[in-house]
């Protein structure tokens, strides 16, 4: 009874179709267009980096994808089904895992219990007022923890973990619903350079193995250029470049945004 309902394979049925399609996304805050007509898509098993200077609209864009913000206009489609404006918990049930910029874990629970909680929720078992939660999905939780290299610390409290380890736990939690899409907001913020590379290498490996589409925002260009299959660049709410890391690096608009005045970015 504790089995997790299996999705029809980790890779979506029509492998050719992108997992996530975003069309003409719009959001304004009191007259300021934070996100202005952004469209892109992410394929299964690939990593797409969303970059841009501060205030470019990355976080706003991100929060519209995971349901924290309702877009003013545009469409978000997950594996062929529209998820625009749905609540975070509904979006999660449709197969979107996420990690937060500031790690978000349950501090009164052990590492394993954190993952178990997500597994219990995924199996629809949270309303049961009897039976010990610690006994549910323990093996599945350990499997996920082994995947991110946190099995040895399964019994520890999340409140006392090192920051890099906390990020790994979050990744395991985000994988618990066997997501089609993984959203990672600044996954390496606050980490040491070596930890950053390790975490993203691990993410890329898991994404490729399970056919998960990954969209992440990132400040660290090293991480972006090593671990993304493609990159999109936002500036002042608009998409100004889209391509491989190398193409984006050479793009004059992008160079202007990051190095120059921003006057050539084709803003308003």
């Amino acid at each position, binding site marked *: 009874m504790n089995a997790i309902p299996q999705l029809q394979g980790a890779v979506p049925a029509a492998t050719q179709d992108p997992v996530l399609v975003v069309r003409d996304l719009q959001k304004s805050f009191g007259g300021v267009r934070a996100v202005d007509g952004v469209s892109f898509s992410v394929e299964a098993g690939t990593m797409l980096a969303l970059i841009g200077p501060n205030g470019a609209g990355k976080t706003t864009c991100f929060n519209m994808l*995971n349901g924290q913000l309702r877009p003013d206009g545009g469409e978000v489609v997950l594996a062929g089904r529209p998820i625009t404006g749905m*609540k*975070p*918990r509904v979006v*999660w*049930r449709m197969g979107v895992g*996420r990690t*937060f910029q*500031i*790690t*978000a*874990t*349950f*501090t*009164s*629970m*052990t590492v394993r*219990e954190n993952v*178990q*909680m*997500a597994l*219990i*929720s*995924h199996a629809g*078992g*949270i*309303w*049961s*007022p*009897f*039976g*010990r*939660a*610690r006994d*549910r999905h323990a093996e599945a939780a350990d499997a996920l923890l082994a995947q991110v290299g946190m099995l040895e610390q399964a019994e520890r*409290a999340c*409140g*006392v*973990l*090192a*920051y890099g380890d*906390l990020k790994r736990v979050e990744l395991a*939690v985000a994988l*618990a*619903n066997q997501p089609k899409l993984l959203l990672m907001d600044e996954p390496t*913020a*606050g*980490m040491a350079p070596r930890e950053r590379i390790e975490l993203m290498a691990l993410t890329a490996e898991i994404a490729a193995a399970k056919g998960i589409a990954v969209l992440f925002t990132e400040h660290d260009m090293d991480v972006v250029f090593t671990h993304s299959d493609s990159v999109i660049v936002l500036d002042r709410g608009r998409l100004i470049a889209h391509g491989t890391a190398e193409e984006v690096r050479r793009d004059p608009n992008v160079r202007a945004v990051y190095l120059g005045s921003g006057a050539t970015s084709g803003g308003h």
Partner: protein
Amino acid sequence: MVDLILTQTLNGLASASSLFLVASGLSIIFGVTRIVNFAHGSLYMLGAYLAWTLVSAFGAAEPLGFWGGVVLAALLVGLLGVVIEVLVLRRIYQAPELFQLLATFGVVLMLQDLALATWGPEDKLGPRAPGLKSFVILFDNRFPTYELFLIAVGPLVLLILWLLFQKTRWGTLVRAATQDREMVGALGVNQRLLFTSVFAFGSMLAGLGGALQLPREAVNLHMDLSMISEVFVVVVVGGLGSVTGAYLAAVLIGILHAFGILIFPKITLVLVFLVMAVVLVVKPYGLMGKAPIGGARGHGPAEPLLLPADKLTKLAGLIALLLLVLAPLVAPDHILLTLTELVIFALFAASLHFMMGPGGMASFGHAAYFGLGAYGAALAVKWLGASMEPALIFAPFLAGIAGVVFGWFCVRLSGVYLAMLTLAFAQIAWATAFQWVELTGGDNGILGVWPSAWAVSKTGFYYLALGICVLAILALRLTIFSPLGYALRAGRDNPLRAEAIGLDVMRIQWVAFAVAAFAAGIAGALFAFFKGSVFPTYMAIPRSVDALLMVLLGGVQTVAGPVIGAFAYAGLSEQLMKATMYWRFGLGLSIVLLVILFPRGLVGASLMLRERWTRRPEPAARVAVEGGR
């Protein structure tokens, strides 16, 4: 009809002014210090008492005597505010919200006994204001000029506050501190002075509100709690921290009261309740309020790990239970009675702990559900002629249904907002029991709620109470470690993450709220049969605070805590009540000292000690976490 509407509107506006004075003071203090001052109603009451004394001394017939007395009373209350701020609040600005609320409630208790000792228990009738004694004829109705004066006071004070905040340096600082306290501190402003002056100013407003009531109503010892619960409604509706919101809400509530008396004279509070409900659904943080920055439930201190009891703890529990089972063999009757009461209170405390600990929802009105359980049992006996068994089954459902209804609103809020709202609901339940005399017998209560023959002996009832309470506490415990309990805890630990793994935090909390109310109802029903009678005091604020203290004494973070806390606290307060007639003062003082000495709570203090003892190499990791934020 038109003239009736107009006069009632004027009446409503007049009573809104005092409400606004007190509420704006509370709001301003909260804005700067982030403390909800429970004692604000007490300052209002003292304003009225002081004005009564001063006006009598100066000569009430002279304008100077009357107005001088009123103003001086307000200033004295402001001065008292300074004393309270320096002695109590200044020491607890860093403490958790709940402890701050509790400390100011300690002040409420102390001031209540101070007023009793100074002015005695009789109501004090104030004189009418010289120069404003006459009537104005409005739409064929005589309307006292003093009421018109009061109507003008509200907007006038609002204007003065606006000028003060916009045009003076002090006002600018207050506004700045309301927006970003740390920034103001970083800019080199003398925070101590600012906080003290703000508290004094807010206190003065409350004192003025009380003093101005002198010609309108008799001064009495119940003014404090009745005012504070109304003020809580006003600031919840208006938006905590917004003075304009406080005025709008005060007018709204004042007018509702005035018309409520015409429409439902018995249950005017129901109208207030309905309006509050509508406002909270549309604007959860009040008409003019803003959501707390970073979410009220944002990144608090990390909650400690909760583990199931180890073998030793289980063994200790088993032995304690065995002792309780064997107690009737040796204990004399009066001890058995005390034990029965303790067992019932242990369930009451455990029910509050269920929503407060794993749920993170601190209720300041949990007695409502205890009382509703008691009334449910008594009403079933009195009106349905039920015997004990069906009454015991019926009663918790009444409490549980109230939990479902009230909880629906409460889970929309958190932290102090939730605490204020739960208190307001408890006050509504209390007022209904008090006012609806035909059904509840009002102040006289319902007598003759006796157990069935088999449980009528002291030993018989003790075993009944012990059996039911132990089962109920164990069920609550089981639930805490079940998936539902984990989901509840997940929502408390990190609502953002909980929603991101598909948990409907609000709905889970709603269920927990109802479960806690149901369990409190069981305790209340047992208590009714234990005492043989029910009274409105069963759901009064002090009883809610009893439950809070039991939980806090035992420790919010442990599951066995509330049971131990119940035994410790109930034993303690009984001794106190025997020792002195001013037991409220003693209790209040103990609460204040407790919070000042252990700002992180008893459990926090013991955890700190334990950390010092064990000294694991964890601190480095914790620094890393904080550094990453």
